[in-house]
């Protein structure tokens, strides 16, 4: 059953990533160089939609709060984020969109995957050094959410009910998605470019 769900949800995720342009480095580059924010609007709306549905579903009782999985906060999250961001911008791929782009026929994405496997192996080899450095030690309580979500095993750092806050923030993401202009820098009058 789990594997059937993996195939269905994974397949849907890959197909949607293709259709929104996330697997296309042209759209990643235009977003990250702030020239065309179409993909940014898509992502913000998706985070907002996911948040509202999940927390709304929890409040109505049909989404199991136990399915939440919150990752720990530590200094390495920020450092790793910086590294990922630099590589994401330079290559136009992140781990998920990279594997999808490779499957779509992009040859450069296979080089991204090869580099990624080596990078992951390099981290496996250097993990003890990071562990010893203390940069993997929890900060701000580690696995925490902004508010405490009723029934969740994760603590909240603000004195607010986590599910209500989640819906409010979700709505915030949706509003930002609508407000954000399609174009920020570059030629606003530019003709639509051939995406592929």
């Amino acid at each position, binding site marked *: 059953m789990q594997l059937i769900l993996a195939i269905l949800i994974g397949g849907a995720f890959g197909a949607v990533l293709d259709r929104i342009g996330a697997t296309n480095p042209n759209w990643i580059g235009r977003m990250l160089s702030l020239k065309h924010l179409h993909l940014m609007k898509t*992502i913000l709306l998706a985070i907002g939609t996911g948040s509202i549905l999940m927390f709304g579903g929890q409040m109505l009782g049909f989404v199991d709060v136990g399915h939440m999985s919150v990752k720990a906060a530590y200094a390495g999250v920020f450092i790793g984020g910086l590294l990922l961001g630099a590589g994401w911008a330079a290559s136009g791929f992140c781990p998920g969109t990279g594997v999808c782009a490779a499957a779509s026929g992009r040859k450069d994405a296979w080089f991204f995957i090869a580099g990624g496997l080596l990078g992951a192996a390099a981290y496996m080899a250097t993990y003890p050094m990071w562990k010893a450095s203390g940069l993997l030690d929890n900060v701000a309580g580690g696995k925490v*959410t902004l508010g405490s979500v009723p029934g969740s095993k994760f603590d909240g750092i603000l004195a607010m009910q986590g599910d209500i806050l989640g819906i409010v923030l979700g709505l915030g993401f949706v509003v930002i998605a609508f407000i954000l202009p399609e174009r920020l820098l570059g030629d606003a009058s530019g003709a639509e470019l051939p995406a592929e």
Partner: protein
Amino acid sequence: MPLNWKTGGLLLGFVFFLAVLLVKPIGVSTQFVILDGIVADTLNPDFITKTDEGYTSTNAYMAKSNGKYAKNASNPLNYSFVFVLAMMAGAFLSTMARGGIDRAERTMPAIWRANFGDGAGRRYAMAFVGGFVVLYGARLAGGCTSGHMMSGMMQTSISGYIFTLGAFAAAIPVSLMMFKKEG
């Protein structure tokens, strides 16, 4: 052109919701470690070993959290690994259904060609280096764009916000410097 952002955003958000409704939040980058583990264990069968309590590995990272990664690398037909294979199949079918990607684009994206020329070697080298840095960073951070940025912020997780701040703080300047032309 990709889907209108409203349709695309709703669809993408719905997939993230489905994942957390039915199983657990979406994440991808761990599976690079799992594939490395599968390869390492094939080359050296002592890399992952079964113990009374579960699995462990000669590599400290594979062995952490009571051998969680070691276990998944020993049993590749698990939810998260199959999920990534299914993503590839889904992206492939979706691309084919809309007529595929044209030949020039399959070697390198137009935005790269416009800024750095036609040399395929340079593009492949940058994709390789980029992949290295992305996955090293993702494993240091404990997640990537899917797990930290999307799933994390959707759950109002603090780590998701910290990660996203770091990712864009580096991605935007790098992209502004590299891609002056839009392609």
